[in-house]
Protein backbone atom coordinates (compact mmCIF):
# COMPACT_ATOMS: atom_id res chain seq x y z
CA UNK A 1 0.00 0.00 0.00
CA UNK A 2 1.26 3.46 -0.87
CA UNK A 3 1.95 5.47 2.29
CA UNK A 4 -0.37 8.44 2.62
CA UNK A 5 1.02 11.79 1.60
CA UNK A 6 2.11 14.03 4.46
CA UNK A 7 -0.59 16.37 5.65
CA UNK A 8 -0.04 20.10 5.52
CA UNK A 9 -2.11 23.24 5.05
CA UNK A 10 -1.95 22.90 1.28
CA UNK A 11 -2.78 19.19 1.15
CA UNK A 12 -5.99 18.44 -0.69
CA UNK A 13 -8.23 16.09 1.27
CA UNK A 14 -11.50 14.34 0.48
CA UNK A 15 -13.69 11.62 2.01
CA UNK A 16 -13.41 8.20 0.36
CA UNK A 17 -16.63 7.01 -1.28
CA UNK A 18 -16.63 3.49 0.18
CA UNK A 19 -18.00 4.34 3.57
CA UNK A 20 -21.33 4.47 5.32
CA UNK A 21 -22.25 7.15 7.78
CA UNK A 22 -25.08 8.21 10.01
CA UNK A 23 -25.78 11.05 12.39
CA UNK A 24 -26.94 10.07 15.86
CA UNK A 25 -27.73 13.03 18.17
CA UNK A 26 -24.74 15.34 18.59
CA UNK A 27 -22.30 13.62 16.29
CA UNK A 28 -21.63 11.32 13.43
CA UNK A 29 -20.44 7.75 13.02
CA UNK A 30 -18.46 6.60 10.00
CA UNK A 31 -18.08 3.02 8.92
CA UNK A 32 -15.33 2.05 6.52
CA UNK A 33 -16.63 -0.82 4.42
CA UNK A 34 -13.18 -2.10 3.65
CA UNK A 35 -11.83 -2.27 7.19
CA UNK A 36 -15.16 -2.81 8.97
CA UNK A 37 -14.19 -0.19 11.56
CA UNK A 38 -16.40 2.45 13.13
CA UNK A 39 -15.13 5.99 13.69
CA UNK A 40 -17.05 8.45 15.85
CA UNK A 41 -17.05 12.20 15.47
CA UNK A 42 -18.18 15.02 17.77
CA UNK A 43 -20.17 17.98 16.36
CA UNK A 44 -17.05 19.81 15.12
CA UNK A 45 -15.70 16.59 13.61
CA UNK A 46 -19.09 16.11 11.95
CA UNK A 47 -18.78 19.57 10.43
CA UNK A 48 -15.31 18.73 9.14
CA UNK A 49 -16.64 15.49 7.68
CA UNK A 50 -19.36 17.49 5.92
CA UNK A 51 -16.68 19.71 4.40
CA UNK A 52 -14.68 16.68 3.32
CA UNK A 53 -17.43 15.54 1.00
CA UNK A 54 -15.84 17.82 -1.59
CA UNK A 55 -12.18 17.97 -2.40
CA UNK A 56 -10.65 20.85 -0.34
CA UNK A 57 -7.34 22.14 0.88
CA UNK A 58 -6.70 21.79 4.62
CA UNK A 59 -6.17 25.54 4.94
CA UNK A 60 -9.57 26.16 3.37
CA UNK A 61 -11.27 23.85 5.91
CA UNK A 62 -9.44 25.63 8.72
CA UNK A 63 -10.63 29.01 7.45
CA UNK A 64 -14.24 27.82 7.39
CA UNK A 65 -13.97 26.42 10.92
CA UNK A 66 -12.44 29.64 12.21
CA UNK A 67 -15.31 31.60 10.71
CA UNK A 68 -17.88 29.32 12.35
CA UNK A 69 -16.35 28.53 15.74
CA UNK A 70 -14.74 30.64 18.43
CA UNK A 71 -11.26 29.11 18.39
CA UNK A 72 -7.60 30.14 18.23
CA UNK A 73 -6.12 29.66 14.78
CA UNK A 74 -3.16 27.67 16.08
CA UNK A 75 -5.25 25.34 18.23
CA UNK A 76 -7.81 24.91 15.47
CA UNK A 77 -5.10 24.03 12.94
CA UNK A 78 -3.50 21.54 15.32
CA UNK A 79 -6.81 19.83 16.17
CA UNK A 80 -7.80 19.75 12.52
CA UNK A 81 -4.54 18.11 11.50
CA UNK A 82 -4.91 15.57 14.33
CA UNK A 83 -8.39 14.68 13.14
CA UNK A 84 -7.34 14.46 9.50
CA UNK A 85 -4.41 12.24 10.46
CA UNK A 86 -6.77 9.92 12.36
CA UNK A 87 -9.13 9.83 9.37
CA UNK A 88 -6.19 9.11 7.07
CA UNK A 89 -5.01 6.29 9.33
CA UNK A 90 -8.53 4.82 9.19
CA UNK A 91 -8.46 5.19 5.37
CA UNK A 92 -11.56 7.35 5.49
CA UNK A 93 -10.05 10.21 3.51
CA UNK A 94 -7.62 10.52 0.66
CA UNK A 95 -4.77 13.02 0.80
CA UNK A 96 -3.27 14.45 -2.33
CA UNK A 97 0.25 15.76 -1.96
CA UNK A 98 0.84 19.45 -1.50
CA UNK A 99 0.51 21.24 -4.79
CA UNK A 100 2.67 24.12 -3.76
CA UNK A 101 -0.13 26.63 -4.15
CA UNK A 102 -0.09 29.07 -1.24
CA UNK A 103 -3.01 29.07 1.18
CA UNK A 104 -5.48 31.93 1.22
Amino acid at each position, binding site marked *: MTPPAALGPNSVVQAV*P*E*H*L*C*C*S*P*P*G*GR*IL*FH*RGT*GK*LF*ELDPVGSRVWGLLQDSRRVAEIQQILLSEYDAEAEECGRDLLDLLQDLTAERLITVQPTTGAPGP
Partner: protein
Amino acid sequence: MKYSFQSALAGYKSRPEHELLLLLARSELEPDLRGRVLELCGQALDWQHLLRWASFDRIMPLVAHHLLDLKPPSVPAGFLDPLRTLAWDHARSALVQSDELLRVLQRMEEAGLPALPFKGPVLSDLLYGDVSMRQFTDLDILVRPSDAAKGRSLLLSCGYRPRHIQEGPRGRAALRPQCHYQLVRDDPRVGVELHWRVLPRALGDGLDPAHLVERAGWTSLGGVQVRMFRRQDLPPVLAAHCSKHLCNCVQWIADLAELSKGMEEDDWAESLAVAERAGVRRMLLLCLFLSHELLATRLPERILESARADPLVPSLACEVVARRLAGGAGSVKRERIWFYLRVLQSGPQRLFFLLRTAQLLATPTVREWDRVPLADVWFFLYYPIRAARLLIKWSRRSWTRLRAFCLQPETLK
Protein backbone atom coordinates in the same frame (compact mmCIF):
# COMPACT_ATOMS: atom_id res chain seq x y z
CA MET B 1 -66.54 -0.48 18.87
CA LYS B 2 -69.26 1.75 20.22
CA TYR B 3 -67.50 5.09 20.20
CA SER B 4 -66.21 7.21 17.34
CA PHE B 5 -62.67 7.45 16.04
CA GLN B 6 -62.36 11.07 17.14
CA SER B 7 -63.33 10.29 20.73
CA ALA B 8 -60.91 7.34 20.79
CA LEU B 9 -58.15 9.59 19.46
CA ALA B 10 -58.96 12.34 21.97
CA GLY B 11 -58.82 9.73 24.74
CA TYR B 12 -55.47 8.51 23.51
CA LYS B 13 -54.00 12.00 23.20
CA SER B 14 -55.31 13.04 26.61
CA ARG B 15 -52.16 11.45 27.99
CA PRO B 16 -49.42 13.98 27.12
CA GLU B 17 -46.77 11.27 26.60
CA HIS B 18 -48.84 9.85 23.75
CA GLU B 19 -49.35 13.21 22.06
CA LEU B 20 -45.64 13.94 22.43
CA LEU B 21 -44.68 10.66 20.79
CA LEU B 22 -46.96 11.34 17.85
CA LEU B 23 -45.39 14.77 17.40
CA LEU B 24 -41.88 13.36 17.50
CA ALA B 25 -42.59 10.57 15.00
CA ARG B 26 -41.41 12.57 11.96
CA SER B 27 -38.17 13.54 10.36
CA GLU B 28 -38.65 17.30 10.70
CA LEU B 29 -40.41 19.37 13.34
CA GLU B 30 -42.03 22.48 11.98
CA PRO B 31 -41.88 25.57 14.24
CA ASP B 32 -45.46 25.23 15.52
CA LEU B 33 -44.86 21.59 16.38
CA ARG B 34 -41.62 22.49 18.16
CA GLY B 35 -43.59 24.89 20.33
CA ARG B 36 -46.10 22.20 21.21
CA VAL B 37 -43.30 19.70 21.95
CA LEU B 38 -41.66 22.16 24.36
CA GLU B 39 -45.03 22.84 25.97
CA LEU B 40 -45.70 19.11 26.46
CA CYS B 41 -42.19 18.51 27.82
CA GLY B 42 -42.96 21.12 30.49
CA GLN B 43 -45.76 18.97 31.87
CA ALA B 44 -45.22 16.33 34.53
CA LEU B 45 -44.50 13.43 32.18
CA ASP B 46 -43.80 9.82 32.95
CA TRP B 47 -40.52 9.63 31.02
CA GLN B 48 -40.16 5.90 31.48
CA HIS B 49 -43.61 5.40 29.95
CA LEU B 50 -42.53 7.58 27.03
CA LEU B 51 -39.34 5.57 26.54
CA ARG B 52 -41.22 2.26 26.70
CA TRP B 53 -43.69 3.39 24.05
CA ALA B 54 -40.99 4.95 21.88
CA SER B 55 -39.28 1.59 21.84
CA PHE B 56 -42.51 -0.34 21.28
CA ASP B 57 -43.46 2.02 18.47
CA ARG B 58 -39.94 1.70 17.01
CA ILE B 59 -39.48 5.44 16.88
CA MET B 60 -36.76 5.75 19.52
CA PRO B 61 -34.20 7.23 17.04
CA LEU B 62 -36.66 9.97 16.02
CA VAL B 63 -37.56 10.73 19.64
CA ALA B 64 -33.86 10.91 20.56
CA HIS B 65 -33.05 13.07 17.53
CA HIS B 66 -35.67 15.71 18.33
CA LEU B 67 -35.39 15.76 22.12
CA LEU B 68 -31.60 15.91 22.11
CA ASP B 69 -31.74 18.62 19.47
CA LEU B 70 -34.31 20.72 21.34
CA LYS B 71 -32.94 19.90 24.81
CA PRO B 72 -36.06 21.16 26.62
CA PRO B 73 -34.92 22.36 30.07
CA SER B 74 -37.70 20.42 31.74
CA VAL B 75 -36.52 17.04 30.45
CA PRO B 76 -34.49 15.30 33.17
CA ALA B 77 -30.87 14.42 32.39
CA GLY B 78 -31.67 10.97 33.74
CA PHE B 79 -33.87 10.53 30.67
CA LEU B 80 -31.76 12.27 28.03
CA ASP B 81 -28.50 10.45 28.83
CA PRO B 82 -29.88 6.91 28.41
CA LEU B 83 -31.75 8.12 25.34
CA ARG B 84 -28.49 9.36 23.80
CA THR B 85 -26.80 6.04 24.62
CA LEU B 86 -29.67 4.11 23.01
CA ALA B 87 -29.55 6.28 19.89
CA TRP B 88 -25.76 5.86 19.48
CA ASP B 89 -25.95 2.10 20.09
CA HIS B 90 -28.66 1.84 17.47
CA ALA B 91 -26.65 3.97 15.03
CA ARG B 92 -23.59 1.71 15.37
CA SER B 93 -25.75 -1.34 14.85
CA ALA B 94 -27.49 0.28 11.85
CA LEU B 95 -24.14 0.88 10.15
CA VAL B 96 -22.94 -2.68 10.71
CA GLN B 97 -26.26 -4.00 9.40
CA SER B 98 -26.20 -1.66 6.41
CA ASP B 99 -22.78 -2.96 5.46
CA GLU B 100 -23.99 -6.53 5.82
CA LEU B 101 -27.05 -5.77 3.71
CA LEU B 102 -24.88 -4.38 0.91
CA ARG B 103 -22.66 -7.45 1.09
CA VAL B 104 -25.64 -9.84 0.92
CA LEU B 105 -27.32 -7.91 -1.90
CA GLN B 106 -24.10 -7.92 -3.90
CA ARG B 107 -23.74 -11.69 -3.46
CA MET B 108 -27.34 -12.17 -4.55
CA GLU B 109 -26.91 -9.98 -7.62
CA GLU B 110 -23.76 -11.90 -8.56
CA ALA B 111 -25.73 -15.14 -8.25
CA GLY B 112 -28.46 -13.76 -10.53
CA LEU B 113 -31.01 -13.39 -7.72
CA PRO B 114 -32.52 -9.92 -7.89
CA ALA B 115 -33.45 -8.89 -4.36
CA LEU B 116 -35.28 -5.92 -2.91
CA PRO B 117 -34.28 -4.62 0.50
CA PHE B 118 -37.56 -4.36 2.33
CA LYS B 119 -37.76 -1.86 5.25
CA GLY B 120 -34.48 -1.60 7.20
CA PRO B 121 -31.61 0.77 6.39
CA VAL B 122 -32.46 1.42 2.74
CA LEU B 123 -35.96 2.58 3.59
CA SER B 124 -34.56 4.59 6.49
CA ASP B 125 -32.12 6.35 4.19
CA LEU B 126 -34.76 6.91 1.53
CA LEU B 127 -37.43 8.31 3.85
CA TYR B 128 -35.43 9.95 6.65
CA GLY B 129 -32.11 10.63 4.93
CA ASP B 130 -30.16 8.58 7.47
CA VAL B 131 -29.79 4.81 7.92
CA SER B 132 -30.15 5.11 11.68
CA MET B 133 -33.39 7.09 11.86
CA ARG B 134 -35.56 4.01 11.53
CA GLN B 135 -35.48 1.39 14.23
CA PHE B 136 -34.86 -2.12 12.94
CA THR B 137 -33.39 -5.29 14.34
CA ASP B 138 -32.84 -7.41 11.25
CA LEU B 139 -32.54 -7.11 7.49
CA ASP B 140 -35.60 -7.85 5.42
CA ILE B 141 -35.02 -8.86 1.82
CA LEU B 142 -37.73 -9.68 -0.71
CA VAL B 143 -37.05 -12.11 -3.54
CA ARG B 144 -39.19 -13.75 -6.19
CA PRO B 145 -40.84 -16.92 -4.79
CA SER B 146 -38.90 -18.96 -7.35
CA ASP B 147 -35.62 -17.56 -5.94
CA ALA B 148 -36.36 -18.13 -2.25
CA ALA B 149 -34.70 -21.55 -1.91
CA LYS B 150 -31.65 -20.44 -3.90
CA GLY B 151 -31.43 -17.27 -1.82
CA ARG B 152 -31.58 -19.27 1.38
CA SER B 153 -28.81 -21.62 0.17
CA LEU B 154 -26.69 -18.63 -0.74
CA LEU B 155 -27.15 -17.11 2.70
CA LEU B 156 -26.28 -20.43 4.33
CA SER B 157 -23.08 -20.45 2.28
CA CYS B 158 -22.36 -16.92 3.60
CA GLY B 159 -22.27 -18.13 7.19
CA TYR B 160 -25.94 -17.77 8.10
CA ARG B 161 -27.89 -20.53 9.80
CA PRO B 162 -31.64 -21.04 10.22
CA ARG B 163 -33.03 -19.43 13.33
CA HIS B 164 -35.68 -22.14 13.60
CA ILE B 165 -35.99 -25.55 12.05
CA GLN B 166 -36.64 -25.15 8.28
CA GLU B 167 -36.10 -28.65 6.89
CA GLY B 168 -37.93 -31.97 6.89
CA PRO B 169 -41.62 -32.30 7.75
CA ARG B 170 -41.18 -30.22 10.91
CA GLY B 171 -39.56 -27.41 8.94
CA ARG B 172 -42.28 -27.48 6.26
CA ALA B 173 -44.96 -27.36 8.97
CA ALA B 174 -43.23 -24.50 10.78
CA LEU B 175 -42.86 -22.51 7.56
CA ARG B 176 -46.45 -23.02 6.40
CA PRO B 177 -47.84 -19.86 8.05
CA GLN B 178 -44.70 -17.86 7.23
CA CYS B 179 -43.64 -15.85 4.23
CA HIS B 180 -39.95 -15.61 5.10
CA TYR B 181 -36.93 -17.58 6.24
CA GLN B 182 -35.32 -16.28 9.41
CA LEU B 183 -31.56 -16.61 9.30
CA VAL B 184 -28.97 -15.56 11.85
CA ARG B 185 -25.21 -15.39 12.22
CA ASP B 186 -22.94 -15.72 15.21
CA ASP B 187 -22.77 -11.92 15.33
CA PRO B 188 -25.96 -11.14 17.29
CA ARG B 189 -26.24 -7.74 15.57
CA VAL B 190 -26.93 -9.31 12.19
CA GLY B 191 -29.96 -11.32 11.10
CA VAL B 192 -31.79 -11.68 7.79
CA GLU B 193 -35.42 -12.36 6.99
CA LEU B 194 -35.62 -13.58 3.42
CA HIS B 195 -39.19 -12.92 2.26
CA TRP B 196 -40.76 -14.60 -0.73
CA ARG B 197 -44.09 -12.85 -0.15
CA VAL B 198 -45.05 -9.49 1.30
CA LEU B 199 -47.94 -11.01 3.24
CA PRO B 200 -48.56 -14.53 4.53
CA ARG B 201 -50.53 -16.54 2.01
CA ALA B 202 -53.65 -16.43 4.17
CA LEU B 203 -53.81 -12.65 3.66
CA GLY B 204 -53.49 -12.81 -0.11
CA ASP B 205 -51.02 -13.20 -2.92
CA GLY B 206 -51.89 -9.96 -4.70
CA LEU B 207 -48.62 -8.15 -4.08
CA ASP B 208 -46.62 -10.38 -6.37
CA PRO B 209 -42.89 -10.15 -5.51
CA ALA B 210 -41.96 -11.11 -9.06
CA HIS B 211 -43.76 -8.01 -10.38
CA LEU B 212 -42.43 -5.83 -7.59
CA VAL B 213 -38.86 -6.91 -8.33
CA GLU B 214 -39.37 -6.51 -12.06
CA ARG B 215 -40.71 -2.96 -11.69
CA ALA B 216 -38.19 -1.90 -9.02
CA GLY B 217 -35.85 1.02 -9.52
CA TRP B 218 -32.47 1.78 -7.99
CA THR B 219 -31.28 3.87 -5.11
CA SER B 220 -27.88 4.53 -3.62
CA LEU B 221 -26.72 3.42 -0.18
CA GLY B 222 -23.19 4.31 0.83
CA GLY B 223 -22.36 4.95 -2.80
CA VAL B 224 -23.60 1.49 -3.85
CA GLN B 225 -26.58 1.08 -6.18
CA VAL B 226 -29.27 -1.18 -4.70
CA ARG B 227 -32.70 -2.11 -5.96
CA MET B 228 -35.63 -0.32 -4.39
CA PHE B 229 -39.41 -0.59 -4.76
CA ARG B 230 -40.92 1.74 -7.29
CA ARG B 231 -42.24 4.75 -5.37
CA GLN B 232 -45.86 3.99 -6.32
CA ASP B 233 -45.52 0.38 -5.13
CA LEU B 234 -44.22 1.35 -1.71
CA PRO B 235 -47.48 2.59 -0.11
CA PRO B 236 -49.38 -0.70 -0.72
CA VAL B 237 -46.35 -2.72 0.40
CA LEU B 238 -45.84 -0.70 3.58
CA ALA B 239 -49.56 -0.66 4.34
CA ALA B 240 -49.81 -4.42 3.86
CA HIS B 241 -46.94 -4.97 6.27
CA CYS B 242 -48.42 -2.51 8.76
CA SER B 243 -51.83 -4.23 8.58
CA LYS B 244 -50.24 -7.65 8.98
CA HIS B 245 -49.08 -6.40 12.39
CA LEU B 246 -52.48 -4.86 13.19
CA CYS B 247 -51.10 -1.33 12.68
CA ASN B 248 -49.58 -1.58 16.14
CA CYS B 249 -46.44 0.46 15.60
CA VAL B 250 -46.35 4.18 14.91
CA GLN B 251 -43.16 3.64 12.89
CA TRP B 252 -45.01 2.11 9.95
CA ILE B 253 -47.56 4.92 9.94
CA ALA B 254 -44.70 7.44 10.14
CA ASP B 255 -43.00 5.75 7.17
CA LEU B 256 -46.11 6.35 5.08
CA ALA B 257 -46.23 9.94 6.28
CA GLU B 258 -42.63 10.53 5.18
CA LEU B 259 -43.23 8.75 1.90
CA SER B 260 -46.26 10.91 1.19
CA LYS B 261 -44.02 14.02 1.04
CA GLY B 262 -42.69 12.98 -2.35
CA MET B 263 -45.98 11.67 -3.75
CA GLU B 264 -47.92 13.57 -6.37
CA GLU B 265 -51.62 13.14 -7.11
CA ASP B 266 -50.83 10.80 -10.03
CA ASP B 267 -48.55 8.67 -7.84
CA TRP B 268 -51.36 8.21 -5.33
CA ALA B 269 -53.80 7.26 -8.07
CA GLU B 270 -51.37 4.62 -9.26
CA SER B 271 -50.70 3.37 -5.73
CA LEU B 272 -54.41 2.96 -5.14
CA ALA B 273 -54.73 1.09 -8.42
CA VAL B 274 -51.87 -1.24 -7.42
CA ALA B 275 -53.51 -1.77 -4.02
CA GLU B 276 -56.88 -2.44 -5.63
CA ARG B 277 -55.44 -5.05 -7.99
CA ALA B 278 -53.50 -6.66 -5.14
CA GLY B 279 -56.53 -6.81 -2.84
CA VAL B 280 -54.97 -4.54 -0.23
CA ARG B 281 -56.88 -1.34 -0.92
CA ARG B 282 -58.56 -1.29 2.48
CA MET B 283 -55.20 -1.87 4.17
CA LEU B 284 -53.79 1.13 2.32
CA LEU B 285 -56.78 3.34 3.10
CA LEU B 286 -56.65 2.33 6.77
CA CYS B 287 -52.96 3.15 7.11
CA LEU B 288 -53.31 6.44 5.26
CA PHE B 289 -56.30 7.37 7.37
CA LEU B 290 -54.29 6.63 10.53
CA SER B 291 -51.35 8.58 9.16
CA HIS B 292 -53.57 11.59 8.49
CA GLU B 293 -55.35 11.45 11.84
CA LEU B 294 -52.40 10.57 14.08
CA LEU B 295 -49.58 12.46 12.37
CA ALA B 296 -51.51 15.12 10.42
CA THR B 297 -50.12 13.81 7.13
CA ARG B 298 -51.26 15.86 4.15
CA LEU B 299 -53.05 13.61 1.68
CA PRO B 300 -55.23 14.22 -1.35
CA GLU B 301 -58.82 14.84 -0.28
CA ARG B 302 -59.95 12.09 -2.65
CA ILE B 303 -58.04 9.49 -0.61
CA LEU B 304 -59.40 10.76 2.69
CA GLU B 305 -62.94 10.74 1.31
CA SER B 306 -62.49 7.14 0.15
CA ALA B 307 -61.16 6.13 3.58
CA ARG B 308 -64.02 7.83 5.44
CA ALA B 309 -66.59 6.36 3.06
CA ASP B 310 -65.27 2.83 3.44
CA PRO B 311 -67.66 0.81 5.63
CA LEU B 312 -64.85 -0.56 7.82
CA VAL B 313 -61.84 1.78 7.73
CA PRO B 314 -63.03 4.24 10.44
CA SER B 315 -64.01 1.43 12.82
CA LEU B 316 -60.74 -0.42 12.22
CA ALA B 317 -58.82 2.80 12.87
CA CYS B 318 -60.85 3.33 16.02
CA GLU B 319 -59.93 -0.18 17.14
CA VAL B 320 -56.22 0.45 16.50
CA VAL B 321 -56.27 3.58 18.65
CA ALA B 322 -58.39 1.95 21.37
CA ARG B 323 -55.92 -0.93 21.52
CA ARG B 324 -53.07 1.52 22.03
CA LEU B 325 -55.04 3.29 24.73
CA ALA B 326 -55.51 -0.05 26.49
CA GLY B 327 -51.74 -0.58 26.23
CA GLY B 328 -52.13 -3.84 24.34
CA ALA B 329 -50.27 -5.15 21.34
CA GLY B 330 -53.16 -7.17 19.98
CA SER B 331 -51.47 -10.52 20.13
CA VAL B 332 -54.56 -12.51 21.07
CA LYS B 333 -55.22 -14.87 18.19
CA ARG B 334 -58.95 -14.24 17.92
CA GLU B 335 -58.34 -10.47 17.94
CA ARG B 336 -55.95 -10.90 15.01
CA ILE B 337 -58.38 -13.08 13.09
CA TRP B 338 -61.22 -10.62 13.61
CA PHE B 339 -59.01 -7.72 12.46
CA TYR B 340 -57.83 -9.59 9.35
CA LEU B 341 -61.37 -10.61 8.42
CA ARG B 342 -62.40 -6.99 8.27
CA VAL B 343 -59.28 -5.53 6.69
CA LEU B 344 -59.54 -7.95 3.77
CA GLN B 345 -61.69 -6.37 1.15
CA SER B 346 -63.62 -9.12 -0.61
CA GLY B 347 -65.73 -12.15 0.30
CA PRO B 348 -63.52 -14.66 -1.53
CA GLN B 349 -60.45 -13.23 0.25
CA ARG B 350 -62.15 -13.74 3.62
CA LEU B 351 -63.25 -17.25 2.74
CA PHE B 352 -59.72 -18.15 1.66
CA PHE B 353 -58.37 -16.62 4.87
CA LEU B 354 -60.75 -18.71 7.00
CA LEU B 355 -59.90 -21.92 5.14
CA ARG B 356 -56.21 -21.22 5.40
CA THR B 357 -56.53 -20.37 9.11
CA ALA B 358 -58.35 -23.66 9.70
CA GLN B 359 -55.62 -25.50 7.81
CA LEU B 360 -52.93 -23.79 9.90
CA LEU B 361 -54.82 -24.56 13.08
CA ALA B 362 -54.62 -28.25 12.23
CA THR B 363 -50.90 -28.07 11.41
CA PRO B 364 -48.66 -29.47 14.15
CA THR B 365 -46.34 -27.04 15.87
CA VAL B 366 -43.26 -27.16 18.06
CA ARG B 367 -45.57 -27.66 21.07
CA GLU B 368 -46.49 -31.11 19.79
CA TRP B 369 -43.04 -32.30 18.76
CA ASP B 370 -41.46 -30.96 21.93
CA ARG B 371 -43.89 -32.95 24.04
CA VAL B 372 -43.92 -36.15 22.02
CA PRO B 373 -40.61 -36.81 20.26
CA LEU B 374 -41.23 -38.89 17.12
CA ALA B 375 -39.06 -39.79 14.13
CA ASP B 376 -39.84 -37.90 10.87
CA VAL B 377 -41.40 -41.01 9.38
CA TRP B 378 -44.14 -40.85 12.07
CA PHE B 379 -44.72 -37.13 11.57
CA PHE B 380 -48.31 -37.71 10.36
CA LEU B 381 -49.18 -38.81 13.92
CA TYR B 382 -48.67 -35.25 15.10
CA TYR B 383 -51.95 -34.25 13.40
CA PRO B 384 -54.17 -36.38 15.72
CA ILE B 385 -51.89 -35.49 18.65
CA ARG B 386 -52.43 -31.79 17.95
CA ALA B 387 -56.19 -32.26 17.59
CA ALA B 388 -56.28 -34.08 20.94
CA ARG B 389 -54.11 -31.45 22.63
CA LEU B 390 -56.28 -28.58 21.40
CA LEU B 391 -59.45 -30.45 22.39
CA ILE B 392 -58.15 -30.98 25.92
CA LYS B 393 -56.94 -27.37 26.15
CA TRP B 394 -60.25 -25.88 24.99
CA SER B 395 -62.30 -28.28 27.17
CA ARG B 396 -60.31 -27.24 30.23
CA ARG B 397 -60.69 -23.58 29.38
CA SER B 398 -64.44 -23.96 28.84
CA TRP B 399 -64.79 -25.93 32.07
CA THR B 400 -62.92 -23.23 34.03
CA ARG B 401 -65.15 -20.54 32.55
CA LEU B 402 -68.29 -22.53 33.18
CA ARG B 403 -67.30 -23.15 36.80
CA ALA B 404 -66.47 -19.47 37.31
CA PHE B 405 -69.84 -18.56 35.83
CA CYS B 406 -71.70 -21.06 38.06
CA LEU B 407 -69.85 -20.02 41.19
CA GLN B 408 -70.38 -16.34 40.58
CA PRO B 409 -73.95 -16.09 42.07
CA GLU B 410 -72.80 -17.88 45.26
CA THR B 411 -69.92 -15.51 45.65
CA LEU B 412 -72.28 -12.61 45.22
CA LYS B 413 -74.55 -13.99 47.88
